């Protein structure tokens, strides 16, 4: 196929692509531009008070240590959850892709995807029932174990991490599974016949070849967790204040949309910088 397109091909291409681009414009570009605009406004445009364009919102974000402390806290939370998701998700995907065949694989897959079918709020409240003092988990363990036990997991950072890992683990399993599935079994057989130990196969063959899936999963999990607010608020209690909950407060509790928008774009910038710094590693992994 040559580089230049005929007029007919071009028209067909435009017809095929226009719905996607139209959707992107309407659903993502327009609202995001409106928010970017709000982040530079001194008051909420459209209200009765006069407003002008200003950098004050961004100045406020960087002037107060509160937001930077919370941003750091959110980044640490996102890294922790991402690492746990990878550590738990990759072995699951490996077993699913390479060891299990037929009906049982389908059944296990269903179990992985099942959480996606329920509302995330319902999932979090279920965790609250499980984790709280005298809750399902404590009663269950008490029934099995001979000694007295008091977990008190609810309203701790641990509870937030458990809730987030549960919500985001399927992404890592699915992306890793797809990447592992693409690896030819003959490669593994060949390695084994040359005397490679299982650990060597994992380290030199499986992880490098499925890196694209692992990285895609990590990005899919890391980015939304930095801005997560629902899980920390419900499961975190006193320690559940994060960058995302402060943004939510600005929008729904104190009606400071400009500051909320500025906080959101600072978050977006930070995430882009992190992804940019990781880009060389990501490219190497994906290649």
């Amino acid at each position, binding site marked *: 196929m040559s580089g230049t397109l005929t007029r007919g091909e071009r028209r067909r291409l435009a017809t095929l692509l226009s719905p996607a681009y139209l959707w992107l414009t309407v659903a993502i570009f327009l609202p995001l531009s409106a928010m970017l605009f709000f982040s530079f406004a001194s008051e909420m445009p459209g209200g009765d008070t006069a407003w002008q364009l200003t950098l004050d919102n961004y100045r406020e974000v960087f002037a107060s240590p509160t937001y930077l*402390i919370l941003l750091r806290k959110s980044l640490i939370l996102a890294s922790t959850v991402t690492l746990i998701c990878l550590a738990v998700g990759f072995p699951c995907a490996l077993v699913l892709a390479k060891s299990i065949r037929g009906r049982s694989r389908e059944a296990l897959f269903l179990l992985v995807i099942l959480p996606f079918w329920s509302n995330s709020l319902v999932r979090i409240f279920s965790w609250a029932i499980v984790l709280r*003092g005298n809750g399902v988990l404590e009663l269950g363990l008490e029934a099995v174990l001979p000694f007295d036990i008091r977990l008190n997991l609810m309203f701790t950072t641990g509870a937030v991490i458990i809730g987030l890992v549960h919500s985001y683990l399927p992404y890592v399993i699915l992306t890793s599974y797809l990447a592992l599935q693409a690896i030819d079994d003959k490669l593994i057989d060949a390695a084994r016949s040359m005397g490679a130990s299982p650990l060597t196969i994992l380290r030199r063959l499986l992880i490098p070849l499925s890196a694209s899936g692992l990285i895609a999963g990590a990005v899919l999990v890391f980015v939304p967790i930095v801005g997560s607010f629902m899980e920390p608020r419900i499961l975190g209690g006193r320690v559940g204040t994060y960058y995302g909950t402060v943004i939510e407060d600005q929008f729904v*509790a104190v009606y400071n949309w400009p500051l909320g928008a500025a906080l959101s774009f600072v978050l977006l910038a930070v995430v882009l910088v992190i992804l940019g710094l990781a880009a060389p590693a990501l490219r190497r992994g994906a290649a």
Partner: protein
Amino acid sequence: MKLSLIAATALAFAAHAAAADEIRVLNWQGYGTDIGWSLEAFEAATGHKVVNEYFNSEQEMLTKLRTNPGAYDVVMINAAFTAQAMAEDLIAPIDTAAIPNFADITPNFAGDSKLVHDGQVYGVPWTWGLTSIAVNTGAYPDPPASLDTMWDPAHQGRVSIRDDAVEAVQFGALATGQDINDIQDLDAVRDKLASLMPQLRTFWGSENDWNQYMAAGEFDVATYWSGSAARSIAQGLPIAFVVPAEGAIGWLDSLSIPESSTRKEAAAQFIDWMIDPEFYVKWDLEGAPTSANAKAIEALPDTSFNKQVVADPDLLARVQFQAPLSDEDRETYLKLWQALKAAQ
């Protein structure tokens, strides 16, 4: 013939629609305006159907009024916010002549400067109450005398306050012996609240939250509203409402009519219904805040929680009523509260 019949039906339908409005009420959930039996009786008496919508914070209420003009006909506003809503032209002056029960409202409340501007009434005093503390009677056989009990290490991890900057700061002012409407030593409030943080189990957000945590035995003592306490006690929760030596924060809730409402007459009828003694006496059985209508309080049985609260002048002397708050102070309190939460 056929045509005229259709026209007549249409006319009758239009007339019916004009007389029977659907009014939309904006309020906290489970707070008086959404009681099933009352709304049925109101619809039977006036033909107006009532639809409730809810907010979770005063700021959210103002946001909803600003962003949905025409969507609401009656809005419940804490009197400390009425001036702000009025200044933003969100609410209209109310024709009190259309509200017969208005004459029976306790004069102090009816003439409250937070609700009346230039002789015009912008909010009909509905209920009032206290923000103080409530204790789990299982953990406290005798009610505590002082707020200090929340800082008592014996109750560590079993204390809660609401996640609300203003309430938290004013509560800190009470605990440090200051005037909640004129806080002189904000650093003392900050230190006092900072030392409360490790005591907390979690923050509570709504009455429903509070009831669930209390019922699950998560809290020994938590800040609470008197009206909600009356309701929780009526539901059988083992709690006691306490006004400690340091006093309590008083609030006044009023019903207002949004400027953008197109059914102001029906709205006034509903407000009259809400302050009616007959409705209040029944509401009180389910746990209600204290009515601003003196006749309604008189009509209560002597054992009622609300009559006891009102009849205790000693207690009332310790109450500090919330005044309107300037935007600067609100901002300062919010920053203080956010910084305290972020440090956890």
